[in-house]
């Protein structure tokens, strides 16, 4: 029996409006169709009518989870246009917030993924830990969501000794708890069994479809802007790019968990080596005409801002590409020939931030648009063949 099942725009599995239209044969997905546009706000157009300083706060509001990533990316680009270099203490604090945000975003994702898989206990535990990070962010910036700590030429708030100590203390606690919970999650067979082999995206597909962030890294494509195009102090910070070769949702989970642990190390490094000095410098208001490309590794992948200035205090053009948009083409591919029960997992596994992706665009199965009808046995045969060729461990175990 064939169904066409709408998932969204309003659906319990989706925290933001998006419409996935699935053609199902029984429980097997035959065709996937993504339709966006429910959250379109025209941020790029608005940005052309605002000054650079105002735009920091506008870009911060592109996303509700990785708000710091957009404003940092924008500030990086504008600082290049203004030809100023923020002081080192300011840089350290800026990327401290970055890494804290990455940890909180990944923990949030892990909770959501556990919930999508019906594992509410892990969800509750992880989110309780995430509160510690939120408290740190509130302590540093005064806000839990939109930190508003970036400004042109540095950051707006300084850290004192007590705060540094508190961050390190919380970090020690978090590290202990995360490892404990992650062990529990990793040894729960129903959870691992549920994630393994779901939403396959081979390395070639990931490269062809320009997947970004943990989605690409889980397919063994080692792209990480922090390593490839080091900004801020990442060039001098020791850390490793986390990849997995399972190419499925389990791999994406593992990559994110490893990244959380790597972020703890980076935060500790930043706090131990925090230089003295001012946190911001004064900057001119009008950059010379020119253009800049800023890249930033957001929790979900590469975030890129293209800024073109025309000599006034307003940008001529601001182009924002959020990581989620880069992953949609890959998602459509992942969804095909999966199970209905896997839709929320696969979709959640790219950590979709729909409001990020939708500041300008709407799309429908953009890749080919073909609507093939295959009978069930052919589909099974195809799936089996793909299963055979996929670089995938069938008796999946937690990779560390």
């Amino acid at each position, binding site marked *: 029996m064939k*169904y066409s*099942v*709408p998932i969204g725009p309003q*659906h*319990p*599995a989706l925290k933001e409006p998006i419409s996935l239209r699935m053609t*199902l044969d*029984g*429980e097997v997905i035959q065709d996937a169709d993504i339709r966006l546009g429910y959250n379109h706000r025209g941020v790029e157009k608005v940005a052309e009518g605002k000054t650079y300083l105002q735009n920091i706060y506008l870009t911060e509001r592109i996303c509700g989870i990785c708000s710091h990533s957009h404003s940092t990316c924008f500030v990086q680009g504008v600082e290049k246009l203004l030809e100023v270099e923020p002081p080192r203490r300011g840089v350290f604090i800026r990327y401290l917030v970055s890494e804290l945000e990455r940890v909180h975003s990944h923990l949030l994702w892990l909770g959501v993924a*556990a*919930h*999508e*898989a*019906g*594992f*509410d*206990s*892990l969800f*509750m*535990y992880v989110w*309780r830990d995430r509160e510690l990070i939120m408290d740190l962010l509130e302590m540093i910036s005064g806000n839990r969501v939109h930190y508003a700590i970036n400004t042109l030429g540095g950051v707006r708030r300084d850290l004192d000794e007590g705060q540094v100590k508190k961050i390190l203390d919380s970090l020690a606690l978090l590290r202990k708890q995360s490892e404990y919970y992650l062990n529990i999650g990793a040894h*729960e067979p*129903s*959870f691992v*069994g*549920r994630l393994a082999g779901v939403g396959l995206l081979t390395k070639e597909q990931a490269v062809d479809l320009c997947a970004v962030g943990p989605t690409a890294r889980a397919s063994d494509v080692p792209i990480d802007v922090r390593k490839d195009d080091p900004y801020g102090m990442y060039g001098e910070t020791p850390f490793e790019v986390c990849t997995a070769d399972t190419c499925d949702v389990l791999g994406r989970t593992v990559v994110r968990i490893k990244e959380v642990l790597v972020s703890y190390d980076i935060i500790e490094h930043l706090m131990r080596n925090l230089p003295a000095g001012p946190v911001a410098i004064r900057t001119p208001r009008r950059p010379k005409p020119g253009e800049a490309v800023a890249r930033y590794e957001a929790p979900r992948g590469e975030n890129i801002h293209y800024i073109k200035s025309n000599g006034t205090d307003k940008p001529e053009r601001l182009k924002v590409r959020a990581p989620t948009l880069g992953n949609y083409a890959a998602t459509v591919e992942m969804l095909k020939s999966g*199970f*209905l*029960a*896997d*839709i*929320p997992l696969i979709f959640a596994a790219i950590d979709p931030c729909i409001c990020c992706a939708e500041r300008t665009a709407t799309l429908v199965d953009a890749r080919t648009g073909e609507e093939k009808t295959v009978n069930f046995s052919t589909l099974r045969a195809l799936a089996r063949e793909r299963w055979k060729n996929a670089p995938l461990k069938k008796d999946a175990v937690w990779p560390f």
Partner: protein
Amino acid sequence: MAILKTFLYLLIYPGFLFLLVYSTFCEWFDRKVFARLQNRMGPTHTGRFGLLQPVADIIKLLAKEDIVPERADRKMFSVLPVIGLAIASTAMLLLPVWHFSLERPSPNSFPGDIIVLLYILSLPTLIFFLAAWSSTSFFSEIGGARVLTLLFGYEVPLFLAVLGPAIMAGSWRLAEIAHFFQQRPLLLLANLLGFLIAVICLQAKLERTPFDIPHAETEIVGGTFTEYSGKKLALFRLMIDVEMVAGAGLLAAVFLGGFPGGVFVGFVHFVIKTLFVIFLLSILRAVTSRIRIDQVVNFSWRYLAPLAVLQLFIILLLKGFVL
């Protein structure tokens, strides 16, 4: 006097009144245990320790607008929750709580009542399927199909597991099985494997994590109950609670030695033993994640059913050589 006793049995204990109060209590207990295992507080505000929260939930649902979808089969859609609750409550009457004599069969305790009880406990699944089918929504229909697929998974292992003690006791009557094990409590240990299988199958029958596939909210919204709201949903929730008590009661009667000692001591036995089973169900719910429908069928036929057969062999061997 006998008539009064029958009325008491039907209406007060373990009949309607006790059943409603106790099933809401069991829901509270389940929620509280589940919440504490997740580091949450669970219900706290309504009544002492939040004891009245399930009641409050049901009252809230009763007060809501009652919606019947235009395309749904109106009669079926409306009547199914009532039938479902009636069926689940009937199952309760067959448990050997009191008001039966071991020598003389009565309408609520007779040879073969274990089969009848299992049969009655299978009916809610059918009710869920019909409810899903008559609401004519995509999500409900997928949920309904999953309900039936799930049934194929857990039903056979459950039957095999529950019939083991019956074979050991050499009786098809719940009261006699319970009495048999009361005389020889050590033999209960021989059924440990069967008990665990039955707990897992009961979890599947009640459609709770990891088997909450028919109404997996992140996939198919409300699944079976997508179109149900208000009073009808309240009745369904009550029905699931009652089913949980009846199922726990069945397991307690068969595997945990029943409820000896007349009305009052038997009552204590009943509460402690059913709560123990529900406690196990809650733990199972807290430590697992939802699995896929194909994984359920795989799991139950690859592991549960063979293990249940193994349990039967153990019982047959015991019966042949030891007893």
